[in-house]
């Protein structure tokens, strides 16, 4: 009888799996459950954009937490302060970002416990994150995030990004995910060294609006953060107006019935 055979093999499978798992650590033959291996993300955040401007760094991210194709959470804060001088923005798996924030908290705490008057700057934090992400990737157990790290220390502005496999960049403007494809081309054309705060915000909003139109996981509720030598501010959540009032939108199939 089929059901009896299935029961029998189920017992054998369980015993085998237990034997393998008791050998601990990852052997090439271990099944998925025994050791942490490459996972898949569950609750994810989409693009983060960061730019340097005259007085420091500006960063933008929306507040969406997607669960596959469902927009499950709409108030997730993806921009956070790190120590005195840095700002982190995260896309990817939110639980891994929450864990990264705990690691950073410990890093800053230990740095402060030295009590030597020095404090970690954005360049150091970026390097720390790169090492953490790269080493996890080498163990086939990544933190499934792409991060943007920006800040100002002793007048020096710094802006970098790092991906889940440890690829890291330092630039005048960076983005994660869809932002790379939709925002950076805009930034390449319109970014300047001497952007004022107002110009920077308008530029970021232009990019975020574009992402809202074209990124399925984007959500119309965002925050913009600013970090300068003086300190850090993260804006209250707000929404952008969108524009749909085009003749071609109202009558898309004029002259070509049946098309879209």
């Amino acid at each position: 009888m089929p059901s009896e055979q299935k029961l029998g093999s189920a017992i054998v499978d369980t015993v085998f799996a237990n034997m393998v798992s008791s050998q601990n650590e990852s052997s090439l033959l271990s099944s998925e459950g025994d050791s942490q291996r490459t996972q898949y993300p569950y609750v994810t955040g989409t693009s983060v954009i960061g730019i340097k401007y005259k007085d420091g760094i500006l960063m933008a991210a929306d507040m969406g937490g997607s669960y596959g194709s469902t927009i499950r959470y709409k108030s997730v804060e993806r921009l956070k302060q790190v120590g005195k001088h840095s700002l982190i923005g995260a896309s990817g798996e939110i639980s891994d970002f929450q864990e990264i924030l705990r690691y950073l908290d410990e890093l800053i705490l230990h740095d402060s416990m030295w009590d030597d008057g020095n404090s970690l700057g954005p360049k150091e934090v970026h390097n720390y994150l790169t090492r953490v992400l790269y080493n996890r990737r080498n163990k086939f157990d990544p933190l499934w995030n792409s991060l943007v790290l920006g800040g100002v220390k002793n007048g020096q502005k710094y802006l970098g990004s790092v991906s889940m496999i440890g690829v890291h960049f330092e630039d005048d403007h960076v983005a994660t995910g869809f932002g790379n494809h939709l925002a950076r081309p805009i930034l390449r054309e319109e970014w300047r060294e001497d952007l004022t705060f107002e110009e920077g915000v308008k530029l970021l909003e232009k990019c975020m609006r574009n992402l809202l139109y074209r990124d399925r996981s984007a959500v119309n509720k965002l925050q913009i953060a600013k970090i300068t030598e003086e300190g850090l501010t993260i804006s209250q959540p707000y929404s952008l107006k969108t524009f749909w009032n085009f003749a071609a939108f109202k009558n898309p199939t004029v002259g070509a019935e049946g098309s879209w």
Partner: protein
Amino acid sequence: MDRDATADVNAPHSMGTTIIGVTYNGGVILGADSRTSTGLYVANRASDKITQLTDNVYICRSGSAADSQIVSDYVRYFLHQHTIQLGQPATVKVAANLVRLLSYNNKNMLQTGIIVGGWDKYEGGKIYGIPLGGTILEQPFAIGGSGSSYLYGFFDQAWKEGMTKDEAEQLVVKAVSLAIARDGASGGVVRTVTINSEGVTRNFYPGDQLPLWHEEVEAHNSLLDILNASSPEPMST
């Protein structure tokens, strides 16, 4: 054909489920359906998915029945020790974080979504959602389980800040009932647990007392009752 009838009784027990947690002006209300399925068979039609962790913290369990039970057992054990060491009731936040730790650190092996709800003297009523993967999010209300797909629009429209206890209770019962109507993996009775400064109250709404929705009809004992209730010769030509 024989295989269809018996279904796969060896399939993992999963709680299709609809679970809800809602804050109101004084505490929280947790709600859930009562169906546990093994493949297509309903293994338990009256399960209790709202599980106690401490006097003041309860959780709603969804996903794998085994995984959610073991997580709740561990967290109950840890909270018991924590309460002894602390000398006072554990806070909802601490309970939620313990659930998060287990869910996050075993994310490859667990398949359970949990809603933690309770009341403590520091923060009052709080709800924490902990979906697959171990993300933790404090929310004014949370929904989970397969039945929750049908409730996103409903809550977008019906949720209001600062409801009374009765309004919140009615909202939860209505929502679970709507999800049961459309989700094959949810069913049975609606259970609610209310937690506030005064303590904990359990409520039970049997399946036959829930409101009727679209295309659902009144229940009867028999056709004969219907026939006898109307005119003497209803079936004459």
